[in-house]
């Protein structure tokens, strides 16, 4: 080999070896296989009724003729889909809802579609969707894959929904129910004591009994002295109606604040404090009873609300949220969002809009304290 060739070979080898690790990056830059944004089905994310609508589409696509016929003559029908899944359309002739095997095992493998009201027995598992054109009432300790009703839905005690539930009316869940996935109602949702949930949506979501007495309802909040930014210890900046506070902050009871508050440390609002603005706290926050915040409340860690607090706007926490008895988030005609890792609610609370407990939420049973407790 000539010296020139040897040198060329050596340099080609060295350069080639040095560039080899850059090949994957070069290939990605040319083909850009990983440059596309994350795929999000927009309807699924923004429309809480997405599953319900998809299910209606499914019925329209596969069972329109049978549903129309049953509607016309009032007689029940049963059959199988193309893949062998059984279905039952319950007409006005009150048919047996289960086969002998299903009744024996107390497990239903068929789609159950009722053209009117539907009442289901207790301690039964429904592994396919259940639909009722009217009201739907289930017995206690049932397990449902998914439910859809044009009328109200009443779940018996300790029932479980696995994927989704939607009603065009109101939902009432008995004590101890577990509502996994999405649960939505056009009118309202009321959960019984000890219920677990993940994602709820309704104009009014009531936790616990209808008339749970609260220690205070927040009407008297802000009756004390009005605080200015200069009254706040650690205040470092004030502008555009927002006050920034370094370190922890504690506000005396009954005080009134008419600006937005950003606290870098912990925040403690005394009993009956009123904030006519929004509050943001980077660490833990604790609100005494009867605190009123007109705007949003955002917390970087855990958040605890005393009894009877009212939050007008979104309530967001990176950690856990504990709502005391009789707390209200949002208002009638002013739906908002409560989102946190885990949510614990004492009886008597109301949220207008959406509740999203990312790792699960729970309504305390009678006699339990407001301490967060999640299985």
């Amino acid at each position, binding site marked *: 080999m000539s*010296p020139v060739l040897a040198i060329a070979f*050596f340099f080609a080898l060295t350069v080639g070896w040095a560039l080899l*690790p850059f090949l*994957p990056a070069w290939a*990605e830059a040319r083909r850009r296989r990983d440059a596309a944004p994350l795929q999000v089905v927009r309807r699924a994310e923004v429309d809480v009724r997405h599953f319900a609508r998809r299910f209606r589409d499914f019925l329209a696509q596969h069972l329109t003729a049978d549903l129309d016929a049953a509607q016309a003559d009032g007689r029940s029908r049963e059959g199988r889909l193309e893949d*062998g*899944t059984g279905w039952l359309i319950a007409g006005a002739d009150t048919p047996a809802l289960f086969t002998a095997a299903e009744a024996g095992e107390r497990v239903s493998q068929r789609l159950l579609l009722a053209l009117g009201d539907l009442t289901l027995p207790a301690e039964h598992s429904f*592994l396919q969707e259940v639909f009722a054109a009217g009201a739907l009432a289930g017995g206690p300790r049932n*397990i449902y894959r998914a439910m859809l009703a044009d009328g109200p839905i009443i779940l018996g005690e300790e029932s*479980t929904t696995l994927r989704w539930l939607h009603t065009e009316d109101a939902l009432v869940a008995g004590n101890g129910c577990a509502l996994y996935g999405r649960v939505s109602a056009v009118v309202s949702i009321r959960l019984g004591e000890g219920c677990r949930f993940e994602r709820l949506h309704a104009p009014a979501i009531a936790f616990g009994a209808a008339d749970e007495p609260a220690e205070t309802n927040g009407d008297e909040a802000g009756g004390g002295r009005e605080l200015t930014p200069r009254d706040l210890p650690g205040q470092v900046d004030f502008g555009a109606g927002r006050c920034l506070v370094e370190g922890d902050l504690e506000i005396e009871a009954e005080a009134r604040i008419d600006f937005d508050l950003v606290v870098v440390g912990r925040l403690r609002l005394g009993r009956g404090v009123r904030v006519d603005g929004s509050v943001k706290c980077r660490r833990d926050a604790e609100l005494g009873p009867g605190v009123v915040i007109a705007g949003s409340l955002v917390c970087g860690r855990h958040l605890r609300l005393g009894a009877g607090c009212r939050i007008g706007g979104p309530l967001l926490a990176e950690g856990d949220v504990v709502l005391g008895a009789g707390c209200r988030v949002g208002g009638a005609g002013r739906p908002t969002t409560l989102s946190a890792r885990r949510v614990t609610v004492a009886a008597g609370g109301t949220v207008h809009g959406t509740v999203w407990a990312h790792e699960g939420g729970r309504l305390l049973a009678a006699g339990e304290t407001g301490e967060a407790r999640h299985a």
Partner: protein
Amino acid sequence: MPERRDYPRAYDRVLRWQLEQLRRRGWAGGLISPHRAMLTLRLRPRHVVGAALVALLLSGGWVLIMNRVSGLWLQIMEFWRGVIGLPGYMTMVHYPVGDHWHLAVPRLICGALPLTTERWWLGVGLAAVLLLASFLLPRRHVPVAYLLRAAAVLQVWSQYFFAAWPGAFPYDITGYVEVMVIAGLFLIGLVPILLGLTYYVFDFSLVRRLAVTFLVMIHLTLLVPMLFLAHAWLIHNLSLLFMPFLFLIFGLPLEVLVFIALYSWAMSWHGDLDRTAAWRSGRRLVAAVPERGVAPPDKEDSHG
């Protein structure tokens, strides 16, 4: 499934587990995995301990074989030095480290040809080409253009230094190559620790962690002797004028870029996050939901 009245606790436990699995079953019986935008990774103490252990073991192992690697590098450099006709010779020097150990480092004994007018103008030409190329690049390659301009500025400063103070440059090929080889030895030894801090903490299996570590270490082990022998050949033939350019552009920065390139590739490998324990156990589940083939209402959606 046991009867509730017979085994209430077992019933509840089994039922809860089965419900947990069924929650993640789609219409067709398949597993509905969460959208990757929703996935989060938690750093648990056992991950930290595992990462630290693997990193320390591998770095410690490198220290043990470092002198053998130096011996290998000596042979590689001696072989290629002969092939490319670089004058001089290779030798091994030993630096004592404590009382019982020494660090062996291959040393290239070689001098550089003097800086002549032609070589000085060659440097000017290199700077001009770099500058010109930076302006010819398309706009989407702006980062590369700035890198070329920085390299051109660097070479211009070298030109000025060697014109203003000829003979004042304090470094030679032998010292340069030796220092770079030592730096290479320690850089490779640091690779497991760097990956321990930046890669092992993610959800990659042990096999993948070891794979990327060995990939980087083996690549650099083969690159270092070849790269700095190439530097030596260039400096020998083009004079010391080009040493700053080679050092700052194609020296340690290139080795670090190699690390980053392989690291980025390894980061694009699929981790275990999308196959968390729940999903794995779900696969083992004897599903109560039968397989179906009809268009699902909730199949396309992410869980939650």
